[in-house]
């Protein structure tokens, strides 16, 4: 029969193995948030002319400005979220679900808007 120490060691090993590490988790979280915000930005800029014109004013083309926003947000959020305790303890299952889920939801928001 396993001792308490052996059970704790096995549990710790399993936890360590399932954790992904702060850097990967931080940037994965950043990807999830950025992709969703990007999808929402598509809806906003296509619905409200002032939003579209604002992006045009920034770089001369709405899509270029959209890209700059997305890339900057991903990088900055990534470095910020890497420092959080949430990133340090995130499990693989959580992060995989987050990345896959945000990809699907963001894609549906964007595609769904233009279908409608």
């Amino acid at each position: 029969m396993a001792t308490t120490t052996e059970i704790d060691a096995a549990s710790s090993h399993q936890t360590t193995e399932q954790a992904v590490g702060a850097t990967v988790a931080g940037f994965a979280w950043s990807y999830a948030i950025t992709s969703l915000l990007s999808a929402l930005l598509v809806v906003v800029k296509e619905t409200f002319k002032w939003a579209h014109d604002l992006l045009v004013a920034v770089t001369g083309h709405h899509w270029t400005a959209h890209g700059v926003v997305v890339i900057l947000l991903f990088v900055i959020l990534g470095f910020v979220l890497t420092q959080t305790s949430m990133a340090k303890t995130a499990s693989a299952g959580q992060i995989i679900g987050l990345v896959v889920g945000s990809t699907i939801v963001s894609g549906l928001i964007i595609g769904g808007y233009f279908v409608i």
Partner: protein
Amino acid sequence: MPYSSEFILLLHPALGVLAIMASIWTFVELLNAKSQNLVRMRLASVTSAILMWATYIVAGYWYVTLYAADKALIKAGPWPLAHGLFMETKEHVFFMVLLLATLLPIATFSDVLGRRGVRHLAMWIAALVVLTGLAMEGSGAIISMGAKLALLAKTA
């Protein structure tokens, strides 16, 4: 240079499909991840990211400077959805593909050998790059067909 815009247009899906292939390569290396193929795995993931960024730059240049004429043509032709749905979706979903391709080497340069979870995550990211990248390629084909049908309608 004659037909330079067509060359630029053809270059972007070529770079994109090479990025997809590099992501498949990364996925296969991850399936058999060990110390002997770690360098090759990471090289494959970086290659995918670099090629996807190259796709973004080339495609972005063409879209911003040269697409307007094609857009007007497609919207006036028999397949306006080629722009209204497929191009509009493609140009915005691509940002997700770009970020996924950027996330891939971040995952492979983590403890991919020591942590099974990191390896699984990297495999999922590589798979998403492939699936969304292929969606981009297919959308591009539909958009090209929209332009072709519009031109054929003009000559009919």
